[in-house]
């Protein structure tokens, strides 16, 4: 029966939807998170919330077929927040469960290739977080950064920072999704700030910055300018590597 499914928007929720689709023989034409669908025009919709027992059974089934690596890929597809993600995950899982062999490497298949492509996009965005996060030291000795990734990759990105910056307090805040991850020199904590200390342009306000901070940013900008070879100037290439939308987070592109 063609159905419109509303779920709670969590990854466990999606897995539960997959379970129910099998059990209740549902064929959804649309699966969307509840927040996007407050006043639905459809009356024939089914609401599904995460059920740990059901989602675990799906996870175990997937684990046997495509191992942890494959499940990580599906989680990345989920983090893409693309409107197609729920149906794609469902379609992908159906393929996996119905075929005798592990078809996770059959890139002739549309859902398999599409998952691969989205994973590539997510990995690129994670890599960009590693590259473009810029910490600014605040008066209370926290190295803080604001950022607005294209996809919800903050949680997937912070392990790298935890390994690297073990002896300093740091905070990376996703402005778009309004949450941040804070490291207190021991562990990572997800935080939400009630009193944001950044401007409308997402710049951390100067009055909270440590004394020497601006000077260091200007030094970095000076380095950035001096290391460029004027005779080789190639703004097209520069723009391809450093897309406009990241500029406001980079001192080398905001300081004049």
């Amino acid at each position: 029966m063609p159905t419109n499914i509303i779920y709670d928007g969590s990854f466990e929720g999606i897995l539960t939807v997959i379970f129910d689709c099998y059990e209740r023989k549902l064929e959804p034409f649309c699966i969307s998170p509840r927040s996007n669908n407050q006043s639905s025009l459809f009356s024939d919709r089914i609401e599904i919330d995460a059920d740990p027992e059901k989602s675990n059974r799906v996870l175990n089934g997937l684990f046997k077929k495509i191992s942890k690596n494959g499940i990580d890929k599906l989680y990345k597809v989920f983090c893409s927040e693309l409107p197609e993600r729920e149906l794609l995950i469902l379609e992908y899982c159906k393929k996996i469960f119905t075929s005798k062999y592990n078809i996770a490497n059959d890139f002739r298949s549309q859902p398999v290739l599409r998952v691969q492509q989205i994973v590539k996009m997510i990995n690129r965005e994670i890599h960009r977080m590693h590259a473009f996060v810029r910490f600014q030291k605040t008066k209370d000795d926290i190295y803080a950064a604001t950022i607005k990734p294209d996809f919800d990759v903050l949680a997937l990105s912070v392990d790298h920072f935890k390994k690297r910056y073990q002896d300093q307090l740091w905070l990376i805040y996703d402005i778009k999704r309004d949450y941040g991850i804070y490291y207190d020199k021991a562990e990572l904590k997800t935080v939400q700030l009630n009193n944001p200390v950044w401007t409308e342009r997402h710049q951390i306000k100067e009055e909270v910055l440590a004394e020497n901070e601006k000077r260091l940013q200007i030094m970095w900008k000076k380095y950035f300018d001096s290391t460029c070879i004027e005779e080789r100037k190639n703004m097209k290439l520069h723009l391809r590597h450093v897309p406009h939308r990241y500029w406001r987070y980079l001192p080398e592109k905001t300081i004049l």
Partner: protein
Amino acid sequence: MKKSIEEKLAILADAAKYDVSCASSGSNRSNKNKGLGNSTGMGICHSYSEDGRCISLLKILLTNYCVYDCAYCISRSSNDVERAAFTVQEVVDLTINFYRRNYIEGLFLSSGIFKNADYTNERLIRIAKKLRTEENFHGYIHLKIIPGASEEVIQEAGMYADRLSVNLEIPTEKQLKKIAPEKDHSSVYQPMNLLTEKIFENKEDRRKYKKTPKFSPGGQSTQVIIGASPEQDLTILNLASSLYNKQRLKRVYYSGYIPVNEDSRLPVVTNAPLIRENRLYQADWLMRFYGFDVKEIVDDANPNLDLRMDPKLSYALRHPELFPIDINTAPYELILRVPGIGVKTAKLIVKSRKFGKVRYEHIRKMGAAMNRAKFFILVPGTPIPPTIQPQKIKHQMVSNSQQNQLQLFA
């Protein structure tokens, strides 16, 4: 008058920028005792300068005072340029402060030569040592080795650096002698060969005893300047090939010569040979990732790379007898030779075809550049079957790319 850090940074970054090495990869140094930094083997470009080059490391000279007078170098002793020198502490502080803000992966430190090679090398090492032992820094350190370095100095440098490099600069000794009278190739090859030996030994030792301290775990690299002397691509690529095979170098960098000095010993050039440099890098990639032998890329009949097309296409057009290649049956190594198919697409193809026939549409979606690949492959679902007519393909590809270039500059 004493210069501020800002002034020194401007002068000494400017003087270091002609060294094109940028890699922060290939090393593995994990954070210990709650220290600062971590290198995982994967490099990160934290920014790109407006010339489009990656900024991964804080690349500076310790000083641009130099006793040598190499014709191609902006810092040569006979040039009237502003000179500066960092103190050890200044370099350490800059590195740490930039690293903590996630501006850089680490430090690339080179220097003009004051007094002699080892006096200079020892000062560079002092900075790396301080970062490692006093600051508990585990980020990436690339140290330049000044030609003529002694074995003791090399041994010590390798204990603190992730990567070391001795630059050849000019591809042949004959030309080097002409434009850099104080240098010779043996003073480069001696430390380079020592490094090859020590890096190899260290790898063996670490396989046996896990606790052996690392010695330059990211290996070594070098740089050759292109176009400051008349060598052909054949000479340059043969040199690179032997550096990869004999000296086991991780990278050879090609630096298109930018006319910074007027000098009767140098050729008159107005623009840096950027396209030639790009073709050399493409050829370098073919040797390192595509299983090409240098003889297949350049030979006595074709001693220079064709500037109008990439060397892989050029190879395919010289060897029409090898094509078309059957995508569904050819071994991976042959699929890699198809123009327009890269390593990633080739891997997807080989994995997928175990499940059934791979078709034209499939490989297009997997990311093959069909405008080039279509001439060289046999695959079901092809709109037009391939006919290998080198002259025709060449004409089409070259006029296409010329059109693109016209659009670029319009």
